[in-house]
């Protein structure tokens, strides 16, 4: 007994110590982003991350708001529009399809579902260029639609929705609604969709993040700065920063603000992303 206790204490320290080290690696860049956003260009270039040399958070924020008539917040609103509206519509479309796959039997169903699963494996960046050329044929390049329409499709969302429907919607509930005389679409809308709400929120969260983080598609599709999402705007600013170091604080402060909504979403919706990842992993 007396030999086991210090041994166990040692192992415990080793296990938790290794985890703490991993956390330091993960959080260090974020802490740097936080402190860097408080510095002016001079303080940044001095490189001492944890001193408050050149502290000027207020100045950074007001320069961010003023630069080019506040274009940064215009980008921010665009990101909210692309990610919010896109993810909302995408989740509804995905859940409708996943629900249909779960509830109804029809010919060729599993083949069709196989096609959806195949869609999960398509490298999306290989599609961006043909999508751009198609979009320019029909004249939607450099419009909101060019970024909004492609993000409505998420085959993985359909897969997740089917898994969630299987887990959350008992057949009896649907039968009961049918006996009460509800039509099929009404059953979906007021029973099925309501019961699978956790799945809906999960798909929404994943798609919102994906669209907010989307870079390649807007890079290809958009040339008008007014339509840029934050990711593309920061990229454009960063390209200037090598010539003009004054852009560094703009990029860093802008990056910090762009990370905030996602961090908040992930911290407050832990249950959902864990459920989503788990459902995906047991495919």
């Amino acid at each position, binding site marked *: 007994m007396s030999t086991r206790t210090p041994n166990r204490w040692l192992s*415990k320290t080793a296990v*938790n110590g*290794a*985890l703490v080290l*991993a*956390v330091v690696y993960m*959080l260090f*860049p*974020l802490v*740097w982003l936080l402190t860097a956003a408080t510095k002016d260009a001079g303080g940044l270039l001095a*490189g*001492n991350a944890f001193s408050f040399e050149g502290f000027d958070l207020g100045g950074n924020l007001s320069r961010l708001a003023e630069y080019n008539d506040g274009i940064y917040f215009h980008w921010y609103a665009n990101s909210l529009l692309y990610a919010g509206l896109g993810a909302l519509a995408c989740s509804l*479309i995905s859940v*409708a399809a996943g629900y249909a*796959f779960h509830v109804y039997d029809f010919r060729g169903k599993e083949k*069709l579902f*196989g096609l959806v699963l195949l869609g999960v*494996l*398509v*490298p999306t*960046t*290989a*599609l961006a*260029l*043909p999508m751009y*050329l198609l979009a320019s044929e029909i004249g939607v390049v450099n419009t909101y639609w060019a970024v909004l*329409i*492609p993000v*409505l*499709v998420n085959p993985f969302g359909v*897969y997740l929705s089917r*898994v969630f429907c*299987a*887990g959350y919607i008992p057949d009896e509930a649907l039968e009961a609604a049918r006996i009460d005389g509800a*039509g*099929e*679409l009404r059953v*979906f809308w007021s029973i099925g969709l309501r019961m699978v709400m956790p799945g809906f929120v999960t798909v929404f969260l994943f798609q919102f993040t994906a669209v907010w983080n989307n*870079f*390649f598609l807007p890079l290809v599709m958009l040339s008008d700065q007014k339509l840029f999402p934050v*990711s593309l705007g*920061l*990229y454009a600013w*960063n390209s200037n920063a*090598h*010539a003009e170091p004054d852009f*560094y604080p703009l*990029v860093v402060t802008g*990056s910090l603000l762009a990370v905030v909504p*996602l*961090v908040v979403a*992930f911290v407050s919706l832990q249950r959902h*992303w*864990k459920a989503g*990842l*788990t459902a*995906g*992993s*047991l*495919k």
Partner: protein
Amino acid sequence: MKARTRAATLLLTPFFVLFTAVMVVPIGYAVWLSLFTEKQSGLGFGGTETVFTGLDNYTAALGDRAFLEGFGVLLGYCLLYIPLLLAGALGLALLLDSALARARRFFQLALFLPHAVPGIIAALIWVYLYTPQLSPVVQAMDAGGIGFDFFSPEGTLPSVVNIALWEWLGYNMVIFYAALQAIDRSVIEAATVDGAGAWRIAFAIKVPLVKASLAMVGLFTIIGSLQLFTEPLILNKGTGSAVTSTWTPNMYAYTAAFDRNDYGLAAAASVLLALTAALLSFAVTRLTGRRKAGTARQAAPARKAATARQEQPA
């Protein structure tokens, strides 16, 4: 019955119309485009005309050293990144799953957090952390006598791998941890009673039981790796690094399309990349011999069990 067929059609139509427009048609269009080349007519004053050139774009791409070197870079990237990612994520998950770990919720969240950071911003942060004038890391390393140039020819691959690891380690750790938590605890108790130690339980019992998750993560990581673009693009733009504008096949396609306006060549490069992804997916699925996908009903109880376990206070 007719009402049900109608409802199924109505609910599936929006997805499949968009799926066709956004995925099927572009794939077809890319293949079509790859068979044509824009040729300057006469002395170049008469504008361009599009000429059918068969597989010429494919031979041009495959004959271009820059394109092939891109695949070489990808190979090196995968050989470095994938083992580190799988071993790192699985190792962290096993640590978290061991009876000794404390504050499991906190560790999960903290390790996952980088995944919430947009890829472009992750790349920007790390490039700043690699830049000697800006970086406390480089300065600390210099002070410690480790001179490492993250932008040098030998440094760029580890630089990019580090960014990708930072972004994906926690994400995959959560997947593995969830799979580990879904293991029937009585199996582990039985092994403990039989006198197996923590290491033996981890490697002889737990790891074999989460092989399906390992295969899935491996597959998605390969597909993701082939698309490598954002991180090296940031390293390429004006940092004076050894990353060229055709460093990965995806960057090659982008450069062909938007710097040289050679859409046929760009399409051919994209198609070759997608084919590689398809072949590798097929190979990985075959090699790991997973059961057939698509039985959502089977997965559901297991998933529920896993989430139920996860929601217990740690």
